[in-house]
């Protein structure tokens, strides 16, 4: 694998549910270290695209290459081992587990103890492994500022905190590529600012390549390196945030004139 090859390459991917064409001939690639956003109206196929990459759906046509390797037909748990992690749009935490255990599940594929060595805890090194991973998890807990709730049961937390725990769990996978499905949906301004900071830190300090679906155009334009726009399952634009903003198709399909003028104002302020 050469360094020149993109981290993720999506070639001619189409996805069909019965008569509905969720995705039609999508092509894009994401370079290592990029912060890549996917935007588009509701039902445009953004989450379907992410599901194809993470392995929930398998496309009817086309190929997905990750680190130069064809992953199109791999199970989600196999892709996770290769270094693809994700969060969900609608929360998907393990609601009856503590926050700590939720994040420890993220270490699953990095741990080696099994039901037998785990049962013999003290004799087989399972304890040592658990504690090593606990340390790594505590770093993530520190980073996302959730140390006050580490013993709380995930299902009892507020929405904003659950979103953060879910991000922590995805980070615990130690992925090369992290897929964030609307990380800021339903948050107030302050929480959004925090989340945006976490995403940037993940990208710059933790060295993770990020693909993010987000509706908040202010955030998308501010932090993304590149933006792809989907509409009715088709890609209508792909490029730098400013370029995409000026694109005629995008304005009519998604932003509408009002939102477009908002974006102009954002640009002026910046």
């Amino acid at each position: 694998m050469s360094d020149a090859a993109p981290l993720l390459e999506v070639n001619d991917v189409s996805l069909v549910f019965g008569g509905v064409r969720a995705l039609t001939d999508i092509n894009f690639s994401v370079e290592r270290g990029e912060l890549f956003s996917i935007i588009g109206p509701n039902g445009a196929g953004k989450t379907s695209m992410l599901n194809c990459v993470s392995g929930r759906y398998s496309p009817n046509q086309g190929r997905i290459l990750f680190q130069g390797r064809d992953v199109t037909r791999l199970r989600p748990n196999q892709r996770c081992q290769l270094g693809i992690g994700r969060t969900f749009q609608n929360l998907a935490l393990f609601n009856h587990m503590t926050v700590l255990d939720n994040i420890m599940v993220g270490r699953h594929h990095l741990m080696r103890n099994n039901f037998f060595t785990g049962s013999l805890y003290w004799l087989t090194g399972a304890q040592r492994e658990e504690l090593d991973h606990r340390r790594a998890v505590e770093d993530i807990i520190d980073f996302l500022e959730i140390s006050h709730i580490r013993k709380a049961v995930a299902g009892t937390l507020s929405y904003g905190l659950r979103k953060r725990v879910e991000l922590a769990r995805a980070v615990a996978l130690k992925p090369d590529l992290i897929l964030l499905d609307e990380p800021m949906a339903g948050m107030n301004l302050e929480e959004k600012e925090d989340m945006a900071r976490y995403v940037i830190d993940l990208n710059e300090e933790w060295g993770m390549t990020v693909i993010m679906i987000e509706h908040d155009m202010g955030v998308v334009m501010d932090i993304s390196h590149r933006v792809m726009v989907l509409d009715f399952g088709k890609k209508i634009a792909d490029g730098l945030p400013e370029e995409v903003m000026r694109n005629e198709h995008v304005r009519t399909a998604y932003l509408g004139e009002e939102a477009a003028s908002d974006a102009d104002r954002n640009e002026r302020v910046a």
Partner: protein
Amino acid sequence: MAGHATMRCGEFRTSYRADTTIFPTPMSRNFALGGVVVLLLAPLVLNAYYLNLLIQIGYYGIAALGLNILVGFTGQISLGHAAFFGFGAFASAWINNSFGIPVILSIPLAGLLTTAVGMIVGVPAGRIKGLYLAIATLASQFILEDFFARAEWFTGGSSGSLANSISLFGYQMGTDQRYFYVVLFFVVVMFLFGANLLRTRDGRAFVAVRDHYLSAEIMGINLTKYRILSFGISSFYAGIGGALYGHYLGFVSAEGFTILLSIQFLGMVIIGGLGSVMGALLGTTFMVLLPEVMTSLVGTVGDLLPGLSQGVAYIKQMAIGLAIILFLIFEPDGLAHRWKMIKAYWKLYPFSY
């Protein structure tokens, strides 16, 4: 905040090791150790009746913990647990009788054999869930019952098979007093294994599969593997429990392992608390003692109200049914949860939280 674990005053943890112990506080650990010591002395003071009850709680408790790993932790229903329990009983007797392997070894071997059978039955579980899985396990219950009746080489068919009593280093453990220690040993070991399993990687994977299987898969957990593994481990516990049962009674016959016992196992797990190691033991204790308490209660009242004593059998059955219904309504999280509440009450008094 609701989720905060309440801790005793003066309880400071300064290492992750201290934060991952089985027992939350040194106090609770000492209580558990003290309990084991008290039990070690039990055969010296208790009469045969009470010892018999304790031994029953022991072997049913091991099987109930197995079912709790499957139903409570992995979230998969099973209506065939009694069949695995019975398979363990026959298997241990068979291994001992046909190969002359000592009973102390044939018990774990029977556990392994039951694991294999459980994993075969668990294969459909990789594909089906909920009510459909309930029916699939029900089928396995009847298939195994039929197998017990027909496979004379293995079970002795309708006449049943003899299970020798256990002997250690030429020392017969056949009496209740001595057998009690064998059962206690297995209970302690199996519950320690269970508690360890559930605080490490694969235990978390089970709970993850139960709580949200789609995101569990994204977290790198192979769903099919863990669903089948859960059946295997659950059957292992059932097999060990069954083997202990067989060697205790000295005789194993197919009639004891019907669907009724399967339902009783489910009752133990639900009353004790789904998803709690301790709950399996609490629920079993409850289910074993309830009929006895009812009998003695009816015996006492029977003196005052003649005619009641003929109805003891019915009253026992109804009491068990009623207990399950009352638990489902008032304490769906089981005795383990109630126990936690009681502990929290003591720690926090006079505040409510």
